[in-house]
Protein backbone atom coordinates (compact mmCIF):
# COMPACT_ATOMS: atom_id res chain seq x y z
CA UNK A 1 0.00 0.00 0.00
CA UNK A 2 1.40 3.34 -0.96
CA UNK A 3 1.21 5.67 2.01
CA UNK A 4 0.76 9.17 0.73
CA UNK A 5 0.79 11.74 3.50
CA UNK A 6 3.17 14.34 2.22
CA UNK A 7 2.17 16.62 -0.60
CA UNK A 8 4.39 18.26 -3.11
CA UNK A 9 7.50 16.42 -2.24
CA UNK A 10 9.80 16.71 -5.22
CA UNK A 11 11.13 13.33 -6.32
CA UNK A 12 14.73 12.49 -5.66
CA UNK A 13 15.61 12.22 -9.33
CA UNK A 14 14.75 15.11 -11.56
CA UNK A 15 11.31 15.91 -12.88
CA UNK A 16 8.58 13.31 -12.85
CA UNK A 17 8.76 10.36 -15.15
CA UNK A 18 5.95 11.20 -17.44
CA UNK A 19 6.69 10.22 -21.01
CA UNK A 20 3.86 12.23 -22.41
CA UNK A 21 4.62 14.26 -25.23
CA UNK A 22 5.26 17.59 -25.77
CA UNK A 23 2.69 20.01 -25.65
CA UNK A 24 2.62 22.85 -23.39
CA UNK A 25 2.75 21.23 -19.99
CA UNK A 26 6.17 21.14 -18.41
CA UNK A 27 7.18 19.83 -15.06
CA UNK A 28 8.18 22.52 -12.59
CA UNK A 29 11.61 23.87 -13.41
CA UNK A 30 14.63 23.69 -11.16
CA UNK A 31 14.10 27.29 -10.23
CA UNK A 32 10.49 26.59 -9.27
CA UNK A 33 11.61 23.78 -7.02
CA UNK A 34 14.25 25.97 -5.44
CA UNK A 35 11.67 28.63 -4.70
CA UNK A 36 9.42 25.96 -3.23
CA UNK A 37 12.06 24.67 -0.87
CA UNK A 38 13.24 28.17 0.05
CA UNK A 39 9.78 29.46 0.77
CA UNK A 40 9.13 26.57 3.06
CA UNK A 41 12.49 27.04 4.73
CA UNK A 42 12.13 30.76 5.27
CA UNK A 43 8.57 30.48 6.49
CA UNK A 44 9.58 27.88 9.02
CA UNK A 45 12.66 29.89 10.04
CA UNK A 46 10.76 33.07 10.74
CA UNK A 47 8.01 31.23 12.53
CA UNK A 48 10.55 29.57 14.79
CA UNK A 49 12.24 32.95 14.95
CA UNK A 50 9.23 34.34 16.74
CA UNK A 51 9.64 31.93 19.61
CA UNK A 52 13.39 32.47 19.53
CA UNK A 53 12.96 36.24 19.58
CA UNK A 54 10.67 36.15 22.57
CA UNK A 55 13.04 33.85 24.42
CA UNK A 56 15.99 36.00 23.43
CA UNK A 57 14.27 39.10 24.77
CA UNK A 58 13.67 37.44 28.10
CA UNK A 59 17.21 36.11 28.12
CA UNK A 60 18.92 39.40 27.32
CA UNK A 61 16.95 41.41 29.81
CA UNK A 62 17.42 38.77 32.45
CA UNK A 63 21.13 38.63 31.80
CA UNK A 64 21.44 42.39 32.01
CA UNK A 65 19.78 42.44 35.37
CA UNK A 66 22.20 40.09 37.06
CA UNK A 67 24.93 42.61 38.04
CA UNK A 68 22.47 44.58 40.15
CA UNK A 69 21.29 41.47 41.93
CA UNK A 70 24.86 40.46 42.67
CA UNK A 71 25.60 43.86 44.10
CA UNK A 72 22.48 44.64 46.06
CA UNK A 73 20.69 41.40 46.62
CA UNK A 74 17.12 41.23 47.75
CA UNK A 75 17.15 44.80 49.05
CA UNK A 76 16.53 45.89 45.49
CA UNK A 77 12.93 44.94 45.81
CA UNK A 78 12.31 45.51 49.46
CA UNK A 79 14.10 48.74 50.15
CA UNK A 80 12.39 52.05 49.74
CA UNK A 81 15.39 54.29 49.64
CA UNK A 82 16.80 55.83 46.52
CA UNK A 83 19.99 57.75 46.77
CA UNK A 84 22.07 57.92 43.64
CA UNK A 85 25.19 59.26 45.30
CA UNK A 86 25.25 56.78 48.10
CA UNK A 87 24.13 54.05 45.75
CA UNK A 88 21.20 52.99 47.85
CA UNK A 89 18.57 51.66 45.52
CA UNK A 90 15.26 50.14 46.32
CA UNK A 91 12.40 49.50 43.98
CA UNK A 92 9.70 49.08 46.57
CA UNK A 93 7.98 52.34 45.83
CA UNK A 94 8.13 52.16 42.05
CA UNK A 95 6.72 48.65 42.21
CA UNK A 96 3.90 49.75 44.45
CA UNK A 97 3.38 52.78 42.28
CA UNK A 98 3.11 50.56 39.21
CA UNK A 99 0.44 48.43 40.79
CA UNK A 100 -1.41 51.32 42.40
CA UNK A 101 -1.57 53.44 39.25
CA UNK A 102 -2.64 50.47 37.17
CA UNK A 103 -5.37 49.47 39.61
CA UNK A 104 -6.84 52.96 39.71
CA UNK A 105 -6.63 53.30 35.94
CA UNK A 106 -8.25 49.93 35.56
CA UNK A 107 -11.12 50.80 37.86
CA UNK A 108 -11.92 53.79 35.70
CA UNK A 109 -11.19 52.14 32.37
CA UNK A 110 -13.01 48.98 33.35
CA UNK A 111 -16.25 50.75 34.12
CA UNK A 112 -16.04 52.94 31.06
CA UNK A 113 -14.82 50.20 28.78
CA UNK A 114 -17.46 47.64 29.63
CA UNK A 115 -20.22 50.25 29.64
CA UNK A 116 -19.15 51.42 26.21
CA UNK A 117 -18.92 47.89 24.92
CA UNK A 118 -22.43 47.20 26.15
CA UNK A 119 -23.77 50.44 24.76
CA UNK A 120 -22.29 49.79 21.33
CA UNK A 121 -23.22 46.14 21.03
CA UNK A 122 -26.80 45.96 22.28
CA UNK A 123 -28.63 47.96 19.65
CA UNK A 124 -29.15 51.13 21.61
CA UNK A 125 -28.37 53.35 18.67
CA UNK A 126 -28.46 52.93 14.88
CA UNK A 127 -25.70 50.79 13.43
CA UNK A 128 -24.09 53.74 11.67
CA UNK A 129 -23.66 55.60 14.92
CA UNK A 130 -22.34 52.48 16.59
CA UNK A 131 -19.59 52.32 13.99
CA UNK A 132 -18.74 55.99 14.41
CA UNK A 133 -18.41 55.71 18.17
CA UNK A 134 -16.49 52.47 17.92
CA UNK A 135 -13.98 54.12 15.60
CA UNK A 136 -13.58 57.12 17.86
CA UNK A 137 -12.86 54.90 20.84
CA UNK A 138 -10.37 52.89 18.81
CA UNK A 139 -8.63 56.05 17.71
CA UNK A 140 -7.95 56.79 21.35
CA UNK A 141 -5.50 53.93 21.17
CA UNK A 142 -3.74 55.35 18.14
CA UNK A 143 -2.58 58.56 19.80
CA UNK A 144 1.07 58.17 20.79
CA UNK A 145 1.79 58.01 24.50
CA UNK A 146 4.10 61.00 24.44
CA UNK A 147 1.35 63.17 22.95
CA UNK A 148 -0.94 62.11 25.78
CA UNK A 149 1.83 63.15 28.15
CA UNK A 150 2.09 66.58 26.56
CA UNK A 151 -1.67 66.97 26.66
CA UNK A 152 -1.71 65.79 30.23
CA UNK A 153 0.79 68.42 31.32
CA UNK A 154 -0.90 71.34 29.63
CA UNK A 155 -4.57 70.40 29.77
CA UNK A 156 -5.35 67.76 32.37
CA UNK A 157 -3.23 68.98 35.25
CA UNK A 158 -4.38 72.61 35.06
CA UNK A 159 -7.97 71.41 34.73
CA UNK A 160 -7.72 69.05 37.66
CA UNK A 161 -5.87 71.30 40.05
CA UNK A 162 -8.67 73.58 41.28
CA UNK A 163 -11.28 70.89 41.95
CA UNK A 164 -8.72 68.48 43.34
CA UNK A 165 -7.33 70.99 45.77
CA UNK A 166 -10.81 72.07 46.74
CA UNK A 167 -11.73 68.49 47.51
CA UNK A 168 -8.47 68.02 49.34
CA UNK A 169 -8.96 71.00 51.59
CA UNK A 170 -12.44 69.87 52.57
CA UNK A 171 -12.17 66.10 52.63
CA UNK A 172 -8.45 65.58 52.95
CA UNK A 173 -8.74 64.92 56.64
CA UNK A 174 -11.14 62.02 56.22
CA UNK A 175 -9.89 60.39 53.07
CA UNK A 176 -6.18 59.73 52.83
CA UNK A 177 -6.74 59.48 49.11
CA UNK A 178 -7.24 63.19 48.94
CA UNK A 179 -4.64 64.51 51.31
CA UNK A 180 -2.04 67.00 50.26
CA UNK A 181 -2.13 69.33 47.32
CA UNK A 182 -1.89 68.80 43.62
CA UNK A 183 0.88 71.12 42.66
CA UNK A 184 1.89 69.59 39.40
CA UNK A 185 2.44 66.01 38.43
CA UNK A 186 0.60 63.49 40.53
CA UNK A 187 -1.10 60.13 40.68
CA UNK A 188 -4.54 61.46 39.80
CA UNK A 189 -3.81 63.04 36.42
CA UNK A 190 -1.47 60.17 35.58
CA UNK A 191 -4.02 57.50 36.40
CA UNK A 192 -6.71 59.36 34.47
CA UNK A 193 -4.60 59.60 31.34
CA UNK A 194 -3.57 55.99 31.80
CA UNK A 195 -7.22 55.01 31.99
CA UNK A 196 -7.87 56.80 28.70
CA UNK A 197 -5.06 54.86 27.08
CA UNK A 198 -6.15 51.47 28.37
CA UNK A 199 -9.86 52.00 27.74
CA UNK A 200 -9.82 51.03 24.04
CA UNK A 201 -8.29 47.64 24.81
CA UNK A 202 -10.96 46.74 27.33
CA UNK A 203 -13.72 48.16 25.21
CA UNK A 204 -12.69 46.40 21.99
CA UNK A 205 -12.22 42.93 23.47
CA UNK A 206 -15.37 43.19 25.60
CA UNK A 207 -17.26 44.29 22.52
CA UNK A 208 -16.09 41.21 20.64
CA UNK A 209 -17.18 39.05 23.54
CA UNK A 210 -20.60 40.61 23.72
CA UNK A 211 -21.19 40.43 20.00
CA UNK A 212 -20.49 36.75 19.93
CA UNK A 213 -23.05 35.88 22.56
CA UNK A 214 -25.44 33.50 20.88
CA UNK A 215 -28.44 35.49 19.67
CA UNK A 216 -30.67 32.68 20.81
CA UNK A 217 -29.71 33.34 24.38
CA UNK A 218 -30.70 36.97 23.96
CA UNK A 219 -33.98 35.92 22.38
CA UNK A 220 -34.68 33.61 25.27
CA UNK A 221 -34.14 36.37 27.82
CA UNK A 222 -36.38 38.83 25.98
CA UNK A 223 -38.91 36.15 25.36
CA UNK A 224 -39.27 35.71 29.09
CA UNK A 225 -40.14 39.36 29.46
CA UNK A 226 -36.88 40.82 30.67
CA UNK A 227 -36.29 44.51 30.22
CA UNK A 228 -33.32 45.41 28.13
CA UNK A 229 -31.02 45.95 31.08
CA UNK A 230 -32.28 42.90 32.92
CA UNK A 231 -31.33 40.86 29.89
CA UNK A 232 -27.95 42.55 29.73
CA UNK A 233 -27.08 42.33 33.40
CA UNK A 234 -28.50 38.93 34.16
CA UNK A 235 -27.91 37.00 30.94
CA UNK A 236 -25.69 38.62 28.32
CA UNK A 237 -22.92 39.98 30.53
CA UNK A 238 -22.54 36.75 32.46
CA UNK A 239 -22.28 34.84 29.19
CA UNK A 240 -19.61 37.17 27.90
CA UNK A 241 -17.94 37.46 31.27
CA UNK A 242 -14.92 35.30 30.50
CA UNK A 243 -13.95 37.43 27.54
CA UNK A 244 -14.56 40.62 29.48
CA UNK A 245 -12.45 39.30 32.31
CA UNK A 246 -9.71 38.53 29.81
CA UNK A 247 -9.89 42.05 28.46
CA UNK A 248 -9.44 43.47 31.93
CA UNK A 249 -6.41 41.33 32.56
CA UNK A 250 -4.89 42.42 29.27
CA UNK A 251 -5.75 46.02 30.08
CA UNK A 252 -3.96 45.60 33.38
CA UNK A 253 -0.91 44.36 31.55
CA UNK A 254 -0.97 47.33 29.18
CA UNK A 255 -1.37 49.75 32.07
CA UNK A 256 1.63 48.38 33.89
CA UNK A 257 3.80 48.62 30.83
CA UNK A 258 2.80 52.12 29.88
CA UNK A 259 5.76 54.44 30.02
CA UNK A 260 5.81 57.87 28.51
CA UNK A 261 2.60 59.45 29.71
CA UNK A 262 3.39 58.31 33.23
CA UNK A 263 6.98 59.47 32.95
CA UNK A 264 5.71 62.91 32.11
CA UNK A 265 2.80 63.07 34.52
CA UNK A 266 3.87 61.26 37.67
CA UNK A 267 6.80 63.37 38.73
CA UNK A 268 9.50 60.74 39.02
CA UNK A 269 9.51 60.80 42.78
CA UNK A 270 10.56 57.58 44.43
CA UNK A 271 8.17 57.90 47.24
CA UNK A 272 4.81 56.34 47.66
CA UNK A 273 1.74 57.80 49.17
CA UNK A 274 -1.80 56.61 49.03
CA UNK A 275 -2.85 60.12 48.23
CA UNK A 276 -3.91 60.59 44.68
CA UNK A 277 -2.61 64.09 44.71
CA UNK A 278 1.01 63.40 45.41
CA UNK A 279 3.62 62.48 42.85
CA UNK A 280 5.06 59.01 42.60
CA UNK A 281 6.71 56.64 40.19
CA UNK A 282 6.29 53.43 38.29
CA UNK A 283 8.90 50.98 37.11
CA UNK A 284 8.53 51.99 33.48
CA UNK A 285 8.53 55.71 34.19
CA UNK A 286 11.56 55.36 36.43
CA UNK A 287 13.52 53.57 33.75
CA UNK A 288 12.57 56.06 31.07
CA UNK A 289 13.27 59.12 33.19
CA UNK A 290 16.56 58.06 34.70
CA UNK A 291 18.20 56.18 31.86
CA UNK A 292 19.61 59.10 29.84
CA UNK A 293 21.66 60.43 32.75
CA UNK A 294 22.29 57.24 34.66
CA UNK A 295 25.69 56.36 36.04
CA UNK A 296 26.71 52.73 35.64
CA UNK A 297 25.65 51.83 39.16
CA UNK A 298 22.19 53.17 38.66
CA UNK A 299 22.07 51.71 35.16
CA UNK A 300 22.36 48.21 36.49
CA UNK A 301 19.47 48.81 38.83
CA UNK A 302 17.39 50.19 35.99
CA UNK A 303 18.06 47.08 33.98
CA UNK A 304 16.97 45.02 36.93
CA UNK A 305 13.83 47.13 37.14
CA UNK A 306 13.26 46.27 33.50
CA UNK A 307 13.44 42.61 34.29
CA UNK A 308 10.99 43.00 37.14
CA UNK A 309 8.61 44.78 34.81
CA UNK A 310 9.07 42.04 32.24
CA UNK A 311 8.27 39.34 34.75
CA UNK A 312 5.12 41.07 35.94
CA UNK A 313 3.79 41.92 32.49
CA UNK A 314 4.64 38.52 31.02
CA UNK A 315 2.72 36.86 33.79
CA UNK A 316 -0.30 39.07 33.33
CA UNK A 317 -0.23 38.83 29.52
CA UNK A 318 0.05 35.05 29.48
CA UNK A 319 -2.83 34.88 31.92
CA UNK A 320 -4.91 37.26 29.85
CA UNK A 321 -4.21 35.45 26.59
CA UNK A 322 -5.11 32.11 28.15
CA UNK A 323 -8.37 33.47 29.54
CA UNK A 324 -9.34 34.89 26.17
CA UNK A 325 -8.41 31.68 24.39
CA UNK A 326 -10.54 29.81 26.89
CA UNK A 327 -13.40 32.19 26.25
CA UNK A 328 -13.08 31.70 22.49
CA UNK A 329 -13.00 27.96 22.75
CA UNK A 330 -16.03 28.04 24.97
CA UNK A 331 -18.13 29.49 22.23
CA UNK A 332 -17.01 27.18 19.50
CA UNK A 333 -13.42 27.94 18.82
CA UNK A 334 -11.88 30.06 16.09
Amino acid sequence: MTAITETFRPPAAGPGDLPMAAGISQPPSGFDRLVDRSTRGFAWTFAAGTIVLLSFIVYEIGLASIPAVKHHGLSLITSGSWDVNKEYFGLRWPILGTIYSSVIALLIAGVFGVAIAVFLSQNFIPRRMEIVFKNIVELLAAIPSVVYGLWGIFVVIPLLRPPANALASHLGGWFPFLSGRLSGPGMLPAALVLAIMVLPTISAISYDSLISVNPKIKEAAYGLGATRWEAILKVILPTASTGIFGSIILGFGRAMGETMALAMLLGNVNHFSVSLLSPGNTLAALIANDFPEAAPAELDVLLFAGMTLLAITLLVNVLGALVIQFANRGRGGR
Partner: protein
Amino acid sequence: MNTSTLKMADTVKALADTASPGQKHRQHEVVIDCNIKELYYGKFKAVRDTRIPIQKNTITAFIGPSGCGKSTALRCINRMNDLVHGFRFDGHVHYRGVDMYGKKVDPVTVRRHIGMVFQQPNPFHMSIFNNVAFGLRLNRYKGNLHAQVERSLRGAALWDEVKDKLKSSGLSLSGGQQQRLCIARAIATEPEVLLMDEPCSALDPIATRRVEELMVELKARFTIAIVTHNLQQAARVADKTGFMFVDTSKGGRTGYLVEFDDTKKIFQDPAQEATKQYIRGEFS
Protein backbone atom coordinates in the same frame (compact mmCIF):
# COMPACT_ATOMS: atom_id res chain seq x y z
CA MET B 1 -35.95 7.37 -18.73
CA ASN B 2 -37.74 9.04 -21.60
CA THR B 3 -36.78 8.22 -25.10
CA SER B 4 -36.29 11.76 -26.29
CA THR B 5 -33.30 12.23 -24.01
CA LEU B 6 -31.78 9.05 -25.23
CA LYS B 7 -32.42 10.05 -28.81
CA MET B 8 -30.56 13.26 -28.25
CA ALA B 9 -27.70 11.34 -26.74
CA ASP B 10 -27.60 9.16 -29.82
CA THR B 11 -27.61 12.13 -32.16
CA VAL B 12 -24.85 13.84 -30.33
CA LYS B 13 -22.75 10.74 -30.36
CA ALA B 14 -23.40 10.21 -34.03
CA LEU B 15 -22.25 13.75 -34.70
CA ALA B 16 -19.10 13.21 -32.76
CA ASP B 17 -18.41 10.05 -34.66
CA THR B 18 -18.81 11.59 -38.04
CA ALA B 19 -16.67 14.54 -37.05
CA SER B 20 -13.55 12.46 -37.12
CA PRO B 21 -14.18 9.08 -38.63
CA GLY B 22 -10.50 8.33 -38.79
CA GLN B 23 -10.28 8.45 -35.04
CA LYS B 24 -12.83 5.77 -34.58
CA HIS B 25 -10.37 2.98 -34.15
CA ARG B 26 -8.36 5.05 -31.69
CA GLN B 27 -11.42 5.59 -29.52
CA HIS B 28 -10.74 2.31 -27.88
CA GLU B 29 -7.33 3.34 -26.68
CA VAL B 30 -7.39 3.42 -22.90
CA VAL B 31 -5.64 6.55 -21.76
CA ILE B 32 -6.22 6.27 -18.05
CA ASP B 33 -6.65 3.06 -16.16
CA CYS B 34 -7.93 4.00 -12.75
CA ASN B 35 -7.94 1.03 -10.44
CA ILE B 36 -8.85 1.68 -6.83
CA LYS B 37 -8.60 -1.39 -4.68
CA GLU B 38 -8.91 0.37 -1.34
CA LEU B 39 -8.90 4.04 -0.45
CA TYR B 40 -8.74 5.32 3.12
CA TYR B 41 -8.95 8.67 4.80
CA GLY B 42 -7.34 7.80 8.10
CA LYS B 43 -9.42 4.92 9.41
CA PHE B 44 -12.37 5.62 7.17
CA LYS B 45 -12.56 3.40 4.09
CA ALA B 46 -14.00 5.65 1.45
CA VAL B 47 -13.82 3.62 -1.75
CA ARG B 48 -13.18 0.03 -2.76
CA ASP B 49 -12.99 -2.10 -5.88
CA THR B 50 -13.48 0.58 -8.45
CA ARG B 51 -11.85 0.08 -11.80
CA ILE B 52 -12.61 2.55 -14.53
CA PRO B 53 -10.80 2.66 -17.86
CA ILE B 54 -11.03 6.00 -19.56
CA GLN B 55 -10.77 5.96 -23.31
CA LYS B 56 -9.32 8.59 -25.56
CA ASN B 57 -11.66 11.26 -26.91
CA THR B 58 -14.63 10.02 -24.95
CA ILE B 59 -16.67 11.38 -22.13
CA THR B 60 -16.79 9.02 -19.18
CA ALA B 61 -19.30 9.76 -16.46
CA PHE B 62 -19.34 8.65 -12.82
CA ILE B 63 -22.88 8.62 -11.48
CA GLY B 64 -24.39 7.53 -8.21
CA PRO B 65 -26.06 8.79 -5.05
CA SER B 66 -24.30 11.37 -2.90
CA GLY B 67 -21.55 10.03 -0.72
CA CYS B 68 -20.77 7.10 -2.99
CA GLY B 69 -17.23 8.20 -3.63
CA LYS B 70 -17.47 9.39 -7.22
CA SER B 71 -15.62 12.66 -6.57
CA THR B 72 -13.06 10.80 -4.50
CA ALA B 73 -12.46 8.38 -7.35
CA LEU B 74 -12.15 11.20 -9.86
CA ARG B 75 -9.71 13.08 -7.68
CA CYS B 76 -7.50 10.03 -7.50
CA ILE B 77 -6.66 10.50 -11.12
CA ASN B 78 -4.89 13.83 -10.70
CA ARG B 79 -3.74 13.22 -7.14
CA MET B 80 -5.91 15.91 -5.61
CA ASN B 81 -6.68 13.53 -2.75
CA ASP B 82 -3.10 13.91 -1.58
CA LEU B 83 -4.17 17.15 0.03
CA VAL B 84 -6.49 15.41 2.42
CA HIS B 85 -5.06 14.53 5.79
CA GLY B 86 -4.62 10.81 6.25
CA PHE B 87 -5.18 9.77 2.63
CA ARG B 88 -4.05 6.24 1.79
CA PHE B 89 -4.48 4.43 -1.46
CA ASP B 90 -4.03 0.88 -2.60
CA GLY B 91 -4.23 0.39 -6.32
CA HIS B 92 -2.88 2.21 -9.30
CA VAL B 93 -3.72 4.91 -11.72
CA HIS B 94 -1.99 4.31 -15.02
CA TYR B 95 -1.71 7.20 -17.41
CA ARG B 96 -0.45 5.77 -20.68
CA GLY B 97 1.18 2.99 -18.79
CA VAL B 98 2.90 5.13 -16.15
CA ASP B 99 1.68 4.79 -12.58
CA MET B 100 0.73 8.23 -11.29
CA TYR B 101 1.39 7.06 -7.75
CA GLY B 102 4.86 5.75 -8.49
CA LYS B 103 7.54 6.53 -5.99
CA LYS B 104 9.32 8.92 -8.27
CA VAL B 105 6.31 10.71 -9.59
CA ASP B 106 5.76 14.31 -8.55
CA PRO B 107 2.08 15.13 -8.04
CA VAL B 108 2.68 18.68 -9.22
CA THR B 109 3.78 17.39 -12.62
CA VAL B 110 0.78 15.06 -12.76
CA ARG B 111 -1.54 17.98 -12.32
CA ARG B 112 0.11 19.87 -15.09
CA HIS B 113 -0.82 17.13 -17.52
CA ILE B 114 -4.32 16.53 -16.26
CA GLY B 115 -6.69 19.46 -16.03
CA MET B 116 -9.52 19.91 -13.57
CA VAL B 117 -12.70 21.93 -13.44
CA PHE B 118 -14.44 22.19 -10.09
CA GLN B 119 -18.00 22.33 -8.89
CA GLN B 120 -17.88 25.94 -7.78
CA PRO B 121 -16.49 28.21 -10.51
CA ASN B 122 -13.22 29.48 -9.08
CA PRO B 123 -11.51 32.01 -11.33
CA PHE B 124 -8.58 33.81 -9.80
CA HIS B 125 -8.69 37.38 -8.57
CA MET B 126 -7.25 38.56 -11.87
CA SER B 127 -8.29 39.72 -15.29
CA ILE B 128 -9.92 37.29 -17.69
CA PHE B 129 -6.82 37.28 -19.83
CA ASN B 130 -4.53 36.55 -16.91
CA ASN B 131 -6.80 33.76 -15.72
CA VAL B 132 -6.50 31.93 -19.01
CA ALA B 133 -2.83 32.79 -19.37
CA PHE B 134 -2.08 31.56 -15.86
CA GLY B 135 -1.37 27.99 -16.85
CA LEU B 136 0.60 29.12 -19.89
CA ARG B 137 2.84 31.33 -17.81
CA LEU B 138 3.16 28.64 -15.19
CA ASN B 139 4.52 26.27 -17.82
CA ARG B 140 6.72 28.95 -19.35
CA TYR B 141 4.89 28.86 -22.66
CA LYS B 142 7.18 30.01 -25.42
CA GLY B 143 4.61 30.58 -28.11
CA ASN B 144 2.21 33.44 -28.79
CA LEU B 145 0.37 34.02 -25.54
CA HIS B 146 -2.42 36.09 -26.99
CA ALA B 147 -3.16 33.62 -29.72
CA GLN B 148 -3.32 30.70 -27.33
CA VAL B 149 -5.55 32.60 -24.92
CA GLU B 150 -7.90 33.41 -27.77
CA ARG B 151 -7.89 29.82 -28.91
CA SER B 152 -8.76 28.61 -25.43
CA LEU B 153 -11.53 31.14 -24.98
CA ARG B 154 -12.96 30.14 -28.33
CA GLY B 155 -12.68 26.54 -27.36
CA ALA B 156 -14.69 27.30 -24.25
CA ALA B 157 -17.30 29.17 -26.28
CA LEU B 158 -16.57 32.32 -24.33
CA TRP B 159 -14.54 34.40 -26.74
CA ASP B 160 -17.35 36.38 -28.31
CA GLU B 161 -18.70 37.36 -24.93
CA VAL B 162 -15.45 38.58 -23.42
CA LYS B 163 -13.21 39.60 -26.30
CA ASP B 164 -13.80 43.26 -25.55
CA LYS B 165 -13.21 43.02 -21.85
CA LEU B 166 -10.22 40.77 -21.45
CA LYS B 167 -8.79 43.12 -18.86
CA SER B 168 -11.79 43.10 -16.59
CA SER B 169 -11.79 40.85 -13.53
CA GLY B 170 -12.69 37.22 -13.94
CA LEU B 171 -15.06 37.56 -11.02
CA SER B 172 -17.17 40.10 -12.83
CA LEU B 173 -18.69 37.42 -15.07
CA SER B 174 -21.89 35.51 -14.43
CA GLY B 175 -21.76 32.04 -12.89
CA GLY B 176 -22.01 30.20 -16.17
CA GLN B 177 -19.43 32.44 -17.79
CA GLN B 178 -17.08 31.97 -14.84
CA GLN B 179 -17.31 28.23 -15.25
CA ARG B 180 -16.55 28.50 -18.94
CA LEU B 181 -13.64 30.73 -18.01
CA CYS B 182 -12.41 27.98 -15.72
CA ILE B 183 -12.74 25.54 -18.59
CA ALA B 184 -10.79 27.89 -20.86
CA ARG B 185 -8.14 28.15 -18.18
CA ALA B 186 -7.93 24.39 -17.93
CA ILE B 187 -7.68 23.75 -21.65
CA ALA B 188 -5.20 26.53 -22.33
CA THR B 189 -2.28 24.22 -21.66
CA GLU B 190 -3.89 21.50 -23.77
CA PRO B 191 -3.78 18.69 -21.24
CA GLU B 192 -4.71 15.38 -22.70
CA VAL B 193 -7.24 14.64 -20.02
CA LEU B 194 -9.83 16.93 -18.46
CA LEU B 195 -11.50 16.04 -15.18
CA MET B 196 -14.75 17.75 -14.28
CA ASP B 197 -16.22 17.42 -10.80
CA GLU B 198 -19.94 18.24 -11.05
CA PRO B 199 -19.19 21.19 -13.32
CA CYS B 200 -22.81 22.22 -13.74
CA SER B 201 -24.31 21.78 -10.32
CA ALA B 202 -23.81 25.43 -9.36
CA LEU B 203 -25.20 26.70 -12.65
CA ASP B 204 -28.66 27.55 -13.88
CA PRO B 205 -30.26 25.33 -16.57
CA ILE B 206 -29.33 27.53 -19.49
CA ALA B 207 -25.71 27.78 -18.45
CA THR B 208 -25.75 24.04 -17.82
CA ARG B 209 -26.93 23.43 -21.35
CA ARG B 210 -24.12 25.55 -22.78
CA VAL B 211 -21.49 23.75 -20.77
CA GLU B 212 -22.86 20.37 -21.84
CA GLU B 213 -22.70 21.39 -25.47
CA LEU B 214 -19.20 22.57 -24.85
CA MET B 215 -18.19 19.24 -23.38
CA VAL B 216 -19.34 17.43 -26.47
CA GLU B 217 -17.37 19.81 -28.68
CA LEU B 218 -14.27 19.42 -26.55
CA LYS B 219 -14.46 15.66 -26.75
CA ALA B 220 -12.85 15.85 -30.17
CA ARG B 221 -9.66 17.31 -28.73
CA PHE B 222 -9.65 16.11 -25.15
CA THR B 223 -10.47 13.08 -23.09
CA ILE B 224 -13.04 13.95 -20.48
CA ALA B 225 -14.14 12.34 -17.25
CA ILE B 226 -16.99 13.89 -15.35
CA VAL B 227 -18.76 13.32 -12.07
CA THR B 228 -22.42 14.19 -12.08
CA HIS B 229 -25.41 13.63 -9.89
CA ASN B 230 -27.67 14.53 -12.77
CA LEU B 231 -28.71 11.35 -14.55
CA GLN B 232 -30.03 13.10 -17.59
CA GLN B 233 -26.78 14.91 -18.01
CA ALA B 234 -24.88 11.65 -18.06
CA ALA B 235 -27.33 10.27 -20.57
CA ARG B 236 -26.95 13.33 -22.74
CA VAL B 237 -23.22 13.66 -22.94
CA ALA B 238 -21.39 10.55 -21.79
CA ASP B 239 -20.10 7.75 -23.97
CA LYS B 240 -19.32 5.48 -21.06
CA THR B 241 -20.88 5.55 -17.64
CA GLY B 242 -19.86 4.04 -14.34
CA PHE B 243 -22.44 3.65 -11.63
CA MET B 244 -21.16 3.73 -8.06
CA PHE B 245 -23.02 2.90 -4.91
CA VAL B 246 -22.54 2.86 -1.15
CA ASP B 247 -21.75 -0.30 0.75
CA THR B 248 -23.00 -0.02 4.31
CA SER B 249 -22.73 -3.70 5.06
CA LYS B 250 -19.87 -3.48 7.53
CA GLY B 251 -21.16 -0.47 9.37
CA GLY B 252 -19.17 2.06 7.36
CA ARG B 253 -19.97 3.89 4.18
CA THR B 254 -17.70 2.62 1.45
CA GLY B 255 -18.23 3.47 -2.19
CA TYR B 256 -17.73 0.90 -4.90
CA LEU B 257 -18.29 0.51 -8.62
CA VAL B 258 -21.44 -1.40 -9.38
CA GLU B 259 -21.38 -1.35 -13.15
CA PHE B 260 -19.42 0.22 -15.96
CA ASP B 261 -20.45 0.15 -19.59
CA ASP B 262 -21.58 2.10 -22.62
CA THR B 263 -24.03 4.76 -21.57
CA LYS B 264 -26.72 3.36 -23.78
CA LYS B 265 -26.46 -0.03 -22.15
CA ILE B 266 -26.44 1.38 -18.60
CA PHE B 267 -29.57 3.38 -19.22
CA GLN B 268 -31.52 0.98 -21.37
CA ASP B 269 -30.49 -2.44 -20.14
CA PRO B 270 -28.39 -2.39 -16.99
CA ALA B 271 -27.01 -5.68 -15.77
CA GLN B 272 -27.17 -5.01 -12.03
CA GLU B 273 -30.34 -4.63 -10.02
CA ALA B 274 -28.99 -1.64 -8.10
CA THR B 275 -28.28 0.17 -11.34
CA LYS B 276 -31.77 -0.55 -12.57
CA GLN B 277 -33.28 0.90 -9.42
CA TYR B 278 -31.11 4.01 -9.53
CA ILE B 279 -31.90 4.68 -13.17
CA ARG B 280 -35.57 4.28 -12.44
CA GLY B 281 -35.22 6.90 -9.76
CA GLU B 282 -36.05 4.69 -6.84
CA PHE B 283 -33.36 6.40 -4.81
CA SER B 284 -31.03 9.27 -5.42
